[in-house]
């Protein structure tokens, strides 16, 4: 098949039909306890530095919150991690050995980084079920998609995720018809179907009710440990509920880091937020 994708480092198809011919080039290596490592990352847009010597290390299993005023560079940081934006300089490593600056977006997805966008992006014309089906971890090359047929255990996994994100009643509805909060949940569900090691969540609870927000917090806390999570949020009640370390970004670099109370009492952080 000439139209096959040339990526070598993807996981086996879940049907087990594809046991051969897969070189695993960049195996995720968490042996030193670090899941994500950014060093001196700089990104400039027409001379403006959206990220300026940014340093960040996320431990395996950690739940980290990133806060910071608008334009601080939070989304740009996620763009760098997921291969959407190439840094002008600096290093970005996933585990010990995977150099993220050299992989494409789909390759980064395959090594185990999932991303939720700031603006919910789901497939509006597809049903809720199909959205999860497309996201599911499997061999994603053309030929496999042409021949794909959902196996029973795959249906079970989708059903399980549907229950988790409380959309089981909406499974056959067109995703574009969901409420904003439900779309956020669906995108989180798609992320879970990918079974990523590291989840990047950009303002995941924007547009959710308080109740939905708290349930999301519970879900994220339950995911930590097995997964590493990086959550960008403005909602401080939500951040508080998540616990964990908080990193404050300002003008493209880290301004402060610590637990929420420490950070909130930091004089420079107060200035940045008040001076806005």
């Amino acid at each position: 098949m000439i139209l096959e994708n040339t990526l070598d480092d993807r996981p086996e198809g879940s049907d087990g039909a594809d046991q051969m011919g897969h070189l695993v080039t960049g195996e995720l290596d968490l042996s030193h306890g670090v899941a994500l490592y950014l060093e001196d990352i700089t990104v400039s847009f027409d001379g403006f530095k959206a990220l300026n010597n940014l340093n960040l290390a996320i431990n395996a299993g950690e739940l980290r919150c990133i806060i910071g005023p608008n334009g601080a560079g939070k989304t740009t940081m996620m763009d760098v991690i997921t291969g959407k934006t190439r840094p002008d300089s600096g290093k970005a490593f996933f585990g010990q050995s995977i150099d993220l600056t050299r992989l494409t977006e789909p390759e980064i997805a395959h090594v185990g980084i999932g991303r939720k966008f700031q603006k919910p992006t789901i497939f509006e014309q597809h049903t809720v079920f199909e959205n999860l089906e497309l996201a599911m971890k499997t061999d994603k090359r053309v030929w496999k998609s042409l021949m794909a047929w959902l196996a029973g255990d795959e249906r079970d996994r989708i059903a399980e995720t549907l229950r988790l994100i409380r959309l089981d009643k909406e499974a056959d509805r067109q995703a574009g018809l969901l409420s904003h909060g439900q779309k956020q949940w669906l995108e989180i569900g798609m992320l879970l179907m990918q079974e990523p090691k590291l989840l990047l969540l950009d303002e995941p609870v924007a547009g959710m009710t308080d109740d939905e927000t708290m349930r999301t917090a519970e879900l994220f806390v339950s995911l930590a440990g097995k997964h590493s999570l990086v959550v960008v949020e403005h909602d401080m009640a939500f951040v508080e509920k998540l616990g964990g370390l908080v990193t404050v970004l300002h003008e493209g670099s880290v301004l402060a880091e610590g637990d929420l109370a420490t950070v909130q009492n930091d004089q420079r952080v107060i200035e940045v937020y008040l001076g806005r």
Partner: protein
Amino acid sequence: MHKPLTLRILSSLDGKSWAALGAFLALALLVVPVLNLGTAEDSAFHISAYAITLIGKIMCYALVAIAMDLIWGYGGILSLGHGLFFALGGYAFGMYLMRQIGRDGSYGADIPDFMVFLDWKEIPWFWSGSDSFGWVALLVVLVPALVAFVFGYFAFRSRIKGVYFSIITQALTYAAMLLFFRNETGFGGNNGFTDFKRVLGHTITSPETRLVLFGLTALFLAATLIFAAWLVKSKFGRVLTAIRDAESRVMFIGYNPLWYKLTIWVISAVICGIAGALYVPQVGIINPSEMSPANSIEIAIWVAVGGRGTLIGPIIGAFVVNLAKSWFTVSFPEYWLFFLGLLFIVVTLMLPQGLVGLWKKLQEKNASRKGTAA
């Protein structure tokens, strides 16, 4: 449990569609031949050679429309260069038909007349083997596939999208047209290939040959429709429409859009190439005007009129627009382009889902009226 592929293909159309397809094939393969050969010319039931050629030609256009819909309606990529792939298939098969003329040309030479005119002594290297039906049949598929693959690979890899992609396809087709116009490039220049005499040794204008070509076109149209239905209902089809609607999301869940776009692009080009090869023996000519910008734009109009993103839509669009065209060009030839432009504007503004969308809306209205009456 894996459902066998044949079963999946069977289930990609519903019962009604299979019945309609069966009726269409019965009509094309049985009824039309009987009414053409078996009735007197003045009989009310007689189907004329003109009608058969016209419908055969429009079926070729319908194939092109399906091909366009796969890439545009489902893939969200508007090509304004599908005339090129159609012409490539047409020229490849046209050359075979030129070789079939043998020594019956005006110069009585072993090589086609236009080559004699150019003072060539033998068939140029790139046309060697063009007297073999098998080789030419292969060219009909491989040449559009190769051109589409190379062009598509670079365009999609550079993430060229939207109107830029459309313009580049148009430019490519225009450049090809200029190339084919030139006498010395070996494609018959202005006149292209025409005055065919035989196909596989049979007289090309005989009623039987005409009916066979007509039947083959109908069969290929049916097969393409089934294939396309399977394709868009497969997971591949869902990924394709997902790329159309939110490409970055598709990338971040681990699909590489490049290969998906390239696959549908090449499939689309090959369907066009085969359509071109079926078109040339029925119409009796292929020349560079098939690659004119207007032709490729017209293809997009067929699809828009019928309803893109549906499979029956493009077929309906190709028939409606081309039947209207053949009526206009007889009755008011000077007004055809005005009408076409008007049609496009009306459809774009008022019927974004095309005729199929209109039909669905009317049905819904009917259903709701019945609902309130009950």
